[in-house]
């Protein structure tokens, strides 16, 4: 995932590109799903101040919650809404509160949100990722741009496929229209990717 993305997406081989973007999405999804029990532990600890200090370790919990919030935001950015196991396991009153509030809590424990809400908007300001020591883009922005550029790559690959069909069907307007539309999508997404860099 550290491959530098140059301005010309076509410079990358299709296979490399496909492999890279899928690994990004897969790692996010698997990490998030595997981290669900951690979220449960973190939630429980945070809500039980009487627990022994050694078992609570607020720093660890904060770190885990921040990581989960980041993963959750990344998942939403690629269209995978967080499943609701925590709400399902929570007491009824708590689940109702969470569902009814529509996201009043912290990002890690927020319920599944509307898809229209952006990943960035869902991030609480207090959980903003710090900029890198070198003053470069933050890891979260890098991830955001990777998402944009990976989606752009997928769109442009589909354009290649669609426009590859068109010459075989010169008399069918559907193929030409689809090709033109895909070309516009590819161009716009490529511009979005470049603007992000």
């Amino acid at each position: 995932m550290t491959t530098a993305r140059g301005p010309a997406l076509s410079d990358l081989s299709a296979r490399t590109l496909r492999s890279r973007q899928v690994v990004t999405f897969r790692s996010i999804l698997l990490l998030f799903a595997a981290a669900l029990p951690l979220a449960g532990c973190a939630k429980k600890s945070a809500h039980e101040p009487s627990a022994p200090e050694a078992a609570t370790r607020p720093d660890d919990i904060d770190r885990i919650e921040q990581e989960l919030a980041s993963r959750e935001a990344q998942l939403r950015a690629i269209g995978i809404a967080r499943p609701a196991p925590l709400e399902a396991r929570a007491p009824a009153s708590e689940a109702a509160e969470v569902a009814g509030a529509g996201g009043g809590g912290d990002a890690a424990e927020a319920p599944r949100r509307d898809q229209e809400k952006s990943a960035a908007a869902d991030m609480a300001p207090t959980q903003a990722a710090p900029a890198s020591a070198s003053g470069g883009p933050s890891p979260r922005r890098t991830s955001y741009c990777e998402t944009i550029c990976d989606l752009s790559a997928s769109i442009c690959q589909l354009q290649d496929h669609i426009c590859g069909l068109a010459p075989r069907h010169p008399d069918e307007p559907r193929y030409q229209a689809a090709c033109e539309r895909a070309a516009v999508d590819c161009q716009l997404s490529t511009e979005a990717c470049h603007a992000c860099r």
Partner: protein
Amino acid sequence: MKRTFSWISLVAGMALGAALMLAGLAQAGRLAPAPKPEVLVTLAQTLEAEHRRVDLLLKQKDVAGAIAALEQLRTIEWPDRADAGDAAIVLRHDVYGRLLRLRLDHPTVDPKTPDALAAVAGEGLGPDYKAITTNAFTARLVGLRGEISEKQGRDDAALTAYEEALDMNRALLQQALAGAAP
């Protein structure tokens, strides 16, 4: 008697209100049906290990081994949406997408006919893929189905699949762009 009746009315009203709220949230897609989160976690952990194994096999240039490992995953009992929610379906789409990508990129390894690949794509997508939230894995698998349709000589079906995948990716991009960059 009157006091008892009002308590019953109050409790019944609260229960009805709660039920309506939950139904509304579910219909709005804000509650994902995942009554067995442990099933999803176990599945994710299993798949993570298998994906790492496939990574290793591919690093060793053992494409046949990687394909065999992914084929093995086809035989597991995949949980359904009712048990593990949409995420389980998405994870399945990922596995099948990876398998089909390898098969399309390496047609000489354990060769399969386009019809057989189309059957695998259909099996992976399942009957309810359109019901789950748009995501990158499903979009990729739909696009792969387009490639397979092309190999079958079914250009119309291929174009339909490509357009469907394009719509998904466009929606994902718009969704990602809708918010300000971090």
